[in-house]
C-alpha cells in the first residue's frame, strides 16, 4: 500500500536492440520474453535500427542493460558506433553492454576491450544469460 515500501527490489531495465540490416529477430524476441518472465522491464527496439537510434533509446530509457543482437556479421562496424554514442551522452559507464548473435571467436577479444561485457552465441542457455544480467546489471539507483 505505501508508496515508500512497495519498491523493495529494484527493477532491471533492458533494451533489446536489433541493429543494422539483418532482419532476423526471433532470437531477440525469445530473449525479450525470457527477460520479461525473469521480472525485467524490456524495451524492444524493433528491426533495422541505426546505431544512433539505439543510443537515443538507451539514453532516454535510462536502461541498465543494452543487449544488441547482430546476426549479419557487422558487429565490428556497429558496436563501436554505439559505444561512441553512449560515451557522448555519458551513458556508457553505467550501461551493461551485451552482444548476442553470430560473433567469430577472433573478434571477441576486441569487442570486449571496446566495452562489451559478454557475448552470447547461439545455444547459450537462457538461464545463463539471465543470471549474468541479474548479477552484473549496474545499480543505477
Amino acid at each position, binding site marked *: *500500500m505505501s508508496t515508500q515500501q512497495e519498491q523493495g527490489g529494484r527493477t532491471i*531495465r533492458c533494451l533489446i536492440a536489433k541493429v543494422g540490416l539483418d532482419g532476423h529477430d526471433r532470437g531477440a524476441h525469445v530473449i525479450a*520474453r525470457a527477460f*520479461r*518472465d525473469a521480472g525485467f522491464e524490456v524495451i524492444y*527496439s524493433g528491426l533495422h535500427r541505426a546505431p544512433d537510434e539505439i543510443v537515443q533509446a538507451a539514453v532516454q530509457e535510462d536502461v541498465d542493460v543494452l543487449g544488441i543482437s547482430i546476426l549479419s556479421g557487422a558487429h565490428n562496424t556497429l558496436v563501436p558506433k554505439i559505444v561512441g554514442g553512449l560515451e557522448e551522452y*555519458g551513458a556508457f559507464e553505467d550501461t551493461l553492454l551485451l552482444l548476442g548473435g553470430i560473433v567469430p571467436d577472433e573478434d571477441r577479444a576486441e569487442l570486449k576491450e571496446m566495452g562489451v561485457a559478454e557475448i552470447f552465441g547461439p545455444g547459450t542457455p537462457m538461464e545463463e544469460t539471465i543470471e549474468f544480467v541479474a548479477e552484473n546489471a549496474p545499480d*543505477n*539507483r
Partner: protein
Amino acid sequence: MTSADREIETDTDDEHTPETVDDGDTEDSDHAALVAELLDGRHRALARVITKIENRAPGYREIVSRLHEHTGSASVVGITGSPGAGKSTLVDKLAKAYRDRGETVGVIAVDPSSPYTGGAVLGDRIRMASNVGDMDVFFRSMSARGSLGGLSTATSDAVKALDAFGKDRVIVETVGAGQNEVDVVKTAETVCVLVQPGSGDDVQMLKAGILEIGDVFVVNKADMDGAQQTVAELEEMLHMRDEPTGGLQTGHHGPLSDASGDIGGGGAGSDTDETTLGDEEGDTDGWEPEVLETVATDGTGVEGLIETVGRHREYLVESGELDVHARTRYAEEIRQHLRADTAALLEDELAARGGVETLAERVVARETDPYTVADEIVGPLAECLRREE
C-alpha cells in the same frame, strides 16, 4: 566531489556528465547537481531523474520538489484507448507534427507489467518511427509497476521532469483499462480517447468512466469499415450524457443533434460539428467533447486533432478552467502524498506492534476487533495532531 558539484550547480558548461549518482555521502548536492543538469538540457540527467522517480529512489521527492518551480509551461495531452487502437502510432505522428512546428516534445508511454513477475515488455517505442534520431522528442516507456495508487504519482512527477526540462508539449499515453490508467490520464489538461471502428463493445466499455474524462474522441483507422457507425455511436453516447443538463438549457440541445445527424449521414459531418462547437465557445456552459476521425498510419486527420487540442487549450485558458484544473490536480496530489505518507507511518507503527498478522490473529481469536485495533493505532497519532493545535 562536493565542491565540484556546487560548481556545476552554478556553472554547467562542463561537457562531461559528472559522476554524481553513485556517490552516497553527498546525496543532497548530488540531487542539486542532477537537477541543475536537467535544467541545463542534459538528456542523460532527465532520463536519470525519471528513473529515480520510477524507482522511488532515495531523494526523488527532493528532486521533484526542486523541479516544481520550473514547471507550468508545458501543455500536457493525455492519450488513452484500448490495446490496438493505434495510440502509439498516433502519438508518433502527433510528436512529428509538433516538431514540424518547431516545438519540443516529451512522451511518457505507460504499459502494463506482469503482476506475477513484475516484468514487462514495453513496446510503444517501436512505433516511434517518425522521430528517430531526433533527441528533441524525448520518449520514455514506463511500466505500471508498483501501481497501487503510485502510478499516477510517478507519471505526474515524470511529466514535471519533462516540463522543467523545457518541453513545449508533453504527451502521456496509456491503455484505458482501469482506474489507475484513468487517474494517470487525468493529470493531462486535454484528454483524447482513441476508439477503433467496429468496436461496439469498446464503445460500451467507454460508458464505465472513460466517456466522462474525454475532451476529444478520436475514431482512429477511420478508413476501415464501420468507422462512420462508430462515430455516430460515440456522438449518440456523448449526447446521452449531456441530456440531463442539455434538457434544462434550451437551444443547447438542438444544434448538437443536428451535428450528430450530419456525422452519421456523411463524411463531411465533422466540419459542421466543429463550426457548431466553435460558435458555442463563447458560452459559459463549458467544452463539448468532439468526435474526430484519423488514420494514424498515414497521418490523415492529425492536423485536425492538433487544431482541436489547441482550441481546447485556448478554451481552458480563456474560461479559467486551466487554473481550476491545476488547483484540482495539485489538491489531489497533496491528498495522495498525505495518504501515502500516513500509510507509511502507520505501516511502521504496525510493524512495531508485532505486525498485522499478530493483530489479525487476535481478531480471529475474538480478543479484539478490527475497529478497536485501528482506533488503538491511529489514536496516538490523532492525539499528537490535536496537541499541535
